[in-house]
């Protein structure tokens, strides 16, 4: 590296010069004076939104993205056929209208979706967005050599599972030829009827198909750009997107900068610049907000009290944003003593949820006993009300299970990720179970990846685990987790009535009837304590008062508000 050629003496000179500059800089006040009174919108050069992301995005390629930061970026840089409104209903984005059976967008049997694309939609280099772009991107999402981890969401398309599974499994690997791969790719049920009409064919009715098309994985990318630049196509110099913003700078590990896309088909964003600064540490991010270096921040648990108490200078900047997520006790239904339904019920009843969220989590959650979180279709607060904290009832349940005062119970060990919050949670839960059930439990604090391996392969005994919505509909919360033998059925729950209800719901085309079926299954599964819900997390978000139109929804990615950056502006009046 060239740096070795510079003698230390030269560096010292540079350093001295730097110190001189520093003194000069400190002499003057660097904050610009606010305009008194101010107009309603700041001038264009001040239309800058400074945000924080926790880590360098692995990728901003829509077909490879799966983590929250990546989702935030892809949503600003790309537009799909559908998106969500503030109520989390699916609405058209690039699509001209919502496909329904009435307008012919969905076939009578629910197996063919025909979507018309807005002819005004353009890429950031001025070329029109076509149906072929969507066909290419969907096949790319399913390409086994891409190895995208969200591919399985689109297995309801004909030929999708076959194409994505062409490499086999680790136990039975396959080596398909180029020709075989090409023919499998050809067989995927997505086609361009004309330049602005794309047709999807499904193997079975899928009530959430439009929800899935609103996921970033289904966003279009440009074949010519991807093929020309290969792995480097997502760099600032090469990326072509179709979203409200384009990537103008990506200093790896440090920051990404977005600017408006001049060819975007929607109303031109007011923001002239969005900065995503990488700040790994939550407390550091909070300090950066306090020092006016970023405009939006998630409040770390340790600071929640400081910002939410009366008289806090931040009280008018605070939004409490519910997440579409639930934390629950996951007890392995196949491992003693949790193979006994009454033991699971006893554990679920023995924990004081108010003490948990307010005492341990500083209020960053709302107690719940039902699984599907509030704000989502299918939410029903009544479900699971029998698990409201009641020490006497819990003791009785445990006695009925044959373990009065915990006598005769096998050793119980929680597996948890080793971090500060979990140490507090562990302490609390241990005390609760001792106090309320007379049961001694142990804790095994492990590294994150080890925890995932243990839990996601069903080798745990009991854990506290979060489930967050991939899309806001119950099929992402019930069949995916509790149908017999489904991969995400971590606890090994199995009930044939539940399985039957899931099949019935999937085939039902009327939304109200379908939700009623899901509700019935939801109640059944919770009554049997397949899992026992504990709380719905909430995020405390601070937004500077001069940032206007900042709308937070339950399906936002890492940066809350990421679905609506195109409408945000900075007001001219000072804060």
């Amino acid at each position, binding site marked *: *590296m060239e*740096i070795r050629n510079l003698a*230390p003496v030269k*560096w*010292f000179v*540079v*350093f001295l010069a*730097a110190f001189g*500059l*520093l003194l000069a800089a*400190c002499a003057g006040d660097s*904050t610009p004076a606010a305009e008194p009174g101010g107009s309603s919108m700041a001038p264009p050069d001040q239309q800058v939104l400074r945000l924080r992301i926790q*880590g*360098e995005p*692995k990728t901003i*390629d829509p077909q*490879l993205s799966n983590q929250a930061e990546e989702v935030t970026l892809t949503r600003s840089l790309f537009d799909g056929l559908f998106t969500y409104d503030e109520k989390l209903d699916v609405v058209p984005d690039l699509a001209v209208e919502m496909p329904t059976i009435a307008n012919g967008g969905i076939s009578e049997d629910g197996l063919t979706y025909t979507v018309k694309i807005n002819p005004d939609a353009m890429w950031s280099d001025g070329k029109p967005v076509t149906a072929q772009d969507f066909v290419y991107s969907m096949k790319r999402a399913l390409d*086994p050599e*891409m*190895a995208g*981890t969200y*591919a*399985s969401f689109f297995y309801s398309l004909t030929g999708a599972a076959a194409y*994505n599974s062409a*490499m086999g*499994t*680790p*136990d039975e*690997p396959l080596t398909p030829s180029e020709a075989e791969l090409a023919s499998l790719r050809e067989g995927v049920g997505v086609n361009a009827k004309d330049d602005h009409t794309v047709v999807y064919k499904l193997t079975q009715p899928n009530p959430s198909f439009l929800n899935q098309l609103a996921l970033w994985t289904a966003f279009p990318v440009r074949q010519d750009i991807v093929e020309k630049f290969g*792995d480097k196509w997502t760099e600032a110099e090469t990326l072509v997107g179709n979203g409200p913003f384009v990537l103008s*700078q990506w*200093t*790896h*590990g*440090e*920051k990404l900068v977005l600017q408006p896309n001049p060819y975007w088909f929607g109303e031109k964003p007011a923001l002239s610049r969005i900065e995503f*600064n*990488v*700040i*790994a*540490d939550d407390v*550091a991010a909070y*300090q*950066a907000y*306090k*020092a*006016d*270096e970023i405009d939006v921040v998630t409040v770390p648990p340790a600071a929640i009290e400081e910002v939410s108490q009366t008289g806090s200078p931040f009280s008018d900047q605070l939004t409490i944003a519910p997440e579409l997520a639930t934390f629950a006790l996951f007890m392995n239904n196949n491992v003693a003593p949790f193979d006994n339904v009454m033991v699971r019920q006893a554990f679920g009843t023995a924990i004081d949820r108010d003490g948990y969220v307010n005492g341990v989590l500083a209020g960053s959650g709302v107690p719940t006993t039902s699984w599907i979180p509030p704000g989502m279709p299918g939410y029903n607060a009544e479900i699971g009300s029998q698990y409201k904290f009641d020490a006497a009832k819990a003791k009785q349940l445990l006695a009925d299970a044959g373990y009065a005062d915990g006598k005769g119970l096998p050793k119980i060990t929680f597996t948890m990720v080793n971090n500060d919050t979990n140490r507090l949670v562990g302490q609390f839960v241990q005390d609760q179970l001792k106090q309320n059930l007379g049961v001694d439990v142990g804790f095994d604090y492990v*590294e*994150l*990846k*080890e925890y*995932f*391996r243990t*839990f*996601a*392969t069903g080798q745990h005994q009991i854990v506290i685990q*979060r489930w967050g919505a991939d899309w806001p509909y119950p099929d992402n919360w019930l069949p995916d987790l509790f149908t017999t033998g489904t*991969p995400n059925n*971590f606890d090994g729950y199995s009930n044939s009535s539940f399985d039957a209800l899931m099949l019935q719901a999937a085939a039902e085309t009327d939304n109200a009837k379908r939700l009623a079926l899901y509700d019935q299954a939801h109640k059944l599964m919770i009554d049997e304590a397949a899992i026992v819900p504990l709380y719905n997390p909430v995020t405390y978000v601070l937004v500077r008062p001069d940032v206007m139109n900042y709308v937070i929804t339950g399906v936002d990615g890492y940066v809350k508000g990421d679905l609506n950056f195109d409408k945000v502006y900075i007001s001219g009046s000072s804060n």
Partner: protein
Amino acid sequence: MAAYIVRRFLWLALTLLFISLATFVLMHSVKGGPWDTDRAVPPQQVENLNHKYGLDQPLWRQYTTFLTNALQGDLGLSFQRQDKPVTSIILDGFKVSAVLGLLAYTLAAVVGVTLGVYAALHRNHLPDYGSTLVATLGAAVPAFVLGIFLKSLFAVELGWFATFGWDTHGGLVPGWLPRLDQLVLPVITLAALPAAYFARMTRASLLDVLRQDYMRTARAKGLGPRAVMLRHGLRNAAIPVLTLAGPILAALVTGSFIVEQLFEVPGIGRAFVSSVSDRDYGMIMGTTLFYAFVIVLANLVIDISYAYVDPRVRYR
């Protein structure tokens, strides 16, 4: 001398080979792999990922492939930063860490040596106690305490400096140095401990030299105090300091994880630690080897430089 250097390079190669093997074995024996998440990953997707990153090969072949590629300067792909070559991530991170480290090193050497010399020349007087106090504080207060203190006071409360970042895009020297308000605090934080080492070592070494007969001889033959100090005192006092200088330089330029984390500097230290928790096999192997290479090389350079400073040392 040439034979000595060749021999040392052979040892270097052997050391690196051993380190790579040990790292590879340890890395694969830790529970949990790179694809584990809070969702069950379908087996066909695990296979797709394994195939993409070569993990579907037997372990011994994965290792030999790594070695063959590493010899050509290709450390493979990062799993964590999808598809980015490990070599380029390391070089990007090293550039940042090295600039930060060299700045801190220069500051530490200048401040430390100055304090040490000053203290030795005023032995057991107020300046000596003062500089000893500063040096002891620098050595005793860990970087994360000092860093948090400096950051809270000068960045959050007073607002003189940035609380985070190392943005070389629009900095003092584009591509190399960040804005001044981002640069000062991390450099001072990183420099404090080595400055204290330099100060104490210089003081002790110089005091030792001042007692030597040849110093008296130099004065007796009529040399002025300045010449005695520069030509005889400091040159001889430099030898033990130099012993310390090598490892400190290597440690500083390969990055201080704590300072990088505290001030959100995108250096190699940060990338290294996250690679372990992410089970980013490519990055783990790459960064470990790179660290080992830099440290072994730095020690070699210091050993060779002895020969020039100390006439008693000659290598064969």
